[in-house]
């Protein structure tokens, strides 16, 4: 009898445990929503209202404050908070919250969250080749009615085109870009090599030849000064100009054909050059233990190809004489440079579309655009009125700020945008994998054939 009692008692305890376990799951699922609600009420409480006439007026004013969320790069975490504070001061009814994701995760985060009809994000920073993919999936609100004719005319035409899909402006240009060859002038002097001038353009052959002379290896075989490196070692943004300089296309007909394109002779030649930099001449590090800009700023790298956003970094942190030159090209080939950068889009399921559009307009035009360039990402601005300041303002007369003028001119020299394809996400990822494999020693032709197989596998779903 007693035993039976205990059996039933323990059974009841077990069932209760299950009920508690399930109950514990419940609040966890709804947690984000609760936190958001708490945040909003906390903000409302924090709003100073010392002279409010009545409580009801206070409540209605507080209720009008709308919080929008901007999903952007974690690499911009040093952006000056005064940018958003200035916007909020101009638009007291809107509060901007920032959610930052590292570059490697941002694209897949947008893909997953928008794919799951997430409404918690109002504004996204979009890498521009992905705009057509987002447009194809109906993820962004048209912004045609957001800007005046003058504002639209102020955007660089190429940047405006890149943000347009199917005749609608879906993403507002915030920045565009180009690349410069940064070099350690002290290292050139120590090696007895004449450095290139600011308007001089080395060939790739000359660049790697110089890199071999500049490389310094210590007694224990450790490299004290690397010869050369790219900032984004495997990114299509950074490497496609290699193929472009040799006349290679970036993608085939309709944006979904790759066989005969990415394994063409010009791609194999460019990839072989890339292989040689890391594996034959060994002038660039194979690993990513320290990235290119850090190596450069620490005095362990003689030449680096990087964006103009590094000018202020090197100006603040490099304790040696450095300078810039133009992006290299292949001897007998074309001048080809990187272009394209970040745009702003509004989630088509945003619960605050008008507020989100107001923020996008503010940050991509006039004062907001200039603040974002100077104190935010330091990316190259996509507004002609801001770009014009490089040529006219005295602050750009002397180095290092004058390097922005070089960059401004370089942006017009053979810029080739990344390919337009609905499968750009897959293209980007597979490109990176392929060039990572080549970097660590895989035969270039073999790696490019694998790239074709992988891209065809992924593109099959779009056909």
């Amino acid at each position, binding site marked *: 009898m007693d035993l039976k009692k205990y*059996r039933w008692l323990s*059974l009841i305890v*077990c*069932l209760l*445990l*299950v009920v508690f*376990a*399930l109950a514990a799951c419940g609040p966890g699922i709804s947690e984000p929503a609760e936190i958001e609600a708490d945040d909003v009420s906390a903000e409302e409480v924090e709003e100073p209202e010392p002279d409010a006439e009545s409580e009801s007026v206070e409540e209605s004013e507080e209720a009008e404050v709308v919080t929008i969320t901007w999903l952007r790069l974690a690499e911009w975490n040093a952006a000056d908070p005064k940018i958003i504070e200035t916007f909020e001061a101009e638009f007291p009814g809107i509060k901007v919250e920032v959610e930052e994701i590292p570059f490697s995760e941002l694209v*897949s985060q947008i*893909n*997953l969250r*928008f*794919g799951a*009809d997430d409404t918690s994000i109002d504004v996204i920073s979009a890498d521009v080749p992905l705009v057509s993919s987002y447009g*194809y*999936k*109906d*993820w962004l609100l048209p912004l045609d009615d957001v800007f005046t004719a003058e504002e639209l005319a102020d955007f660089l035409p190429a940047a405006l085109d890149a943000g347009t899909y199917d005749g609608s402006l879906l993403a507002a240009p915030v920045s565009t870009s180009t690349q410069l060859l940064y070099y350690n002038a002290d290292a050139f002097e120590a090696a007895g090599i004449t450095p290139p001038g600011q308007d001089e353009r080395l060939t790739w052959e000359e660049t790697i030849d110089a890199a071999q002379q500049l490389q310094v290896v210590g007694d224990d075989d450790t490299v004290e000064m690397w010869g050369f490196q790219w900032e984004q070692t495997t990114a299509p943004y950074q490497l496609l100009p290699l193929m472009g300089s040799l006349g290679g296309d970036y993608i085939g007909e309709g944006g979904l054909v790759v066989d005969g394109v990415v394994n063409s002779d010009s791609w194999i030649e460019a990839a072989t050059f890339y292989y040689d930099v890391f594996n034959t001449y060994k002038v660039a*590090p*194979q*690993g990513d*233990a320290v990235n290119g800009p850090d190596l450069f700023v620490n005095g362990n790298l003689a030449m680096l190809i990087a964006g103009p956003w590094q000018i202020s970094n090197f100006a603040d942190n490099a304790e040696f004489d450095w300078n810039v030159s133009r992006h290299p090209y292949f001897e007998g080939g074309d001048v080809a440079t990187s272009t394209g950068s970040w745009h702003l889009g509004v989630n*088509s*399921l945003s619960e605050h579309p008008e507020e989100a559009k107001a923020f996008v307009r503010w940050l991509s035009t006039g004062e907001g655009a200039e603040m974002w360039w100077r104190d935010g990402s330091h990316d190259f601005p996509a507004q002609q009125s801001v770009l014009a300041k490089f040529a006219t303002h005295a602050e750009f007369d002397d180095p290092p700020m004058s390097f922005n003028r070089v960059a401004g001119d370089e942006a017009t020299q053979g810029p080739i945008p990344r390919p337009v394809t609905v499968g750009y*996400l*897959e293209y980007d*990822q597979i490109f990176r*994998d392929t060039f*990572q*494999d080549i970097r*660590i*020693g*895989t035969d270039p032709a*073999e*790696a490019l054939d*694998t790239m074709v*197989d*992988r891209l065809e*596998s*992924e593109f*099959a*779903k779009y056909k």
Partner: protein
Amino acid sequence: MKNRKKISAVPYLFLAPAIILLVIFNLIPAIATFKQSLFAEAARRGADPIFVGFENFLRIFQDPVFWKSAKVTLFFSLIVNPLQTVFALGLALIATQKVKGIGFFRSIYLLPVAVSINVVVVVWGLMVDPNAGLLNGILKQIGLMEQPFLTSPQQVLNTIIMIISWKGVPYWALFFIAALQAIPVSAVEAAIIDGANKWQLLIRITIPILRPIILFVLVADTIVNFTLFVPIQLLTQGGPQLASNLVMYETYRRGFIYGDLGSSSVMLTIMFFVILIVIGLQNLVLREKN
């Protein structure tokens, strides 16, 4: 009769908590995954997914990347599961010896089990780094050639197997140690009286008694290794040249990087059935004859 019926219901009620949780966290997601594999995502937002039947399966079956991934996974499983099981048994046999200093050995051999897999993978990743890794430093010091542990398609899978076995072998050995300690002394003594040597003792007494444990370890290890993800994500991302691209990683890549949930669900469904078949075969070969 009445009492018997009541008693027979009790075990099921005791099992109910586990069954409920299994249904919620395993069965329902498994069914949802299978259902998802029969649909294509709508191109436009807000539209319902389109029922495409087994079209996603046909696409995956014609996909060379999937087949390469399947081959890598099969090769990996054929090596890693028997290897870990045999080494775990060997380690357990050593750990149960009554020799001087065995207490110290027993304390340290379990250390890898106590370290998180993420930490294990990151630390081993630093050790096998081709440029600045400890292992290549040692090889260089003793005059041997440096090795491309994670950067060569021929070596990468072996390196992954080594890393996960460092953690996995002592873990599975725990099960064997428990089983070895439960072997009846009388059976061992009887065999010794009959003149059995140590090898005969192992083959005729120990292993037959351990058969159910060997089956359990093999089955559990197979499931763990079929779903291996962390080392691939942290160290190789499936490369170089897809040489470490296990199906689980390809499933993650399609679903969570490319947002192609249809393909991802198909691969998971296929893997589910493959694991079922492999476990069924293991059961068939190793189960008790009676």
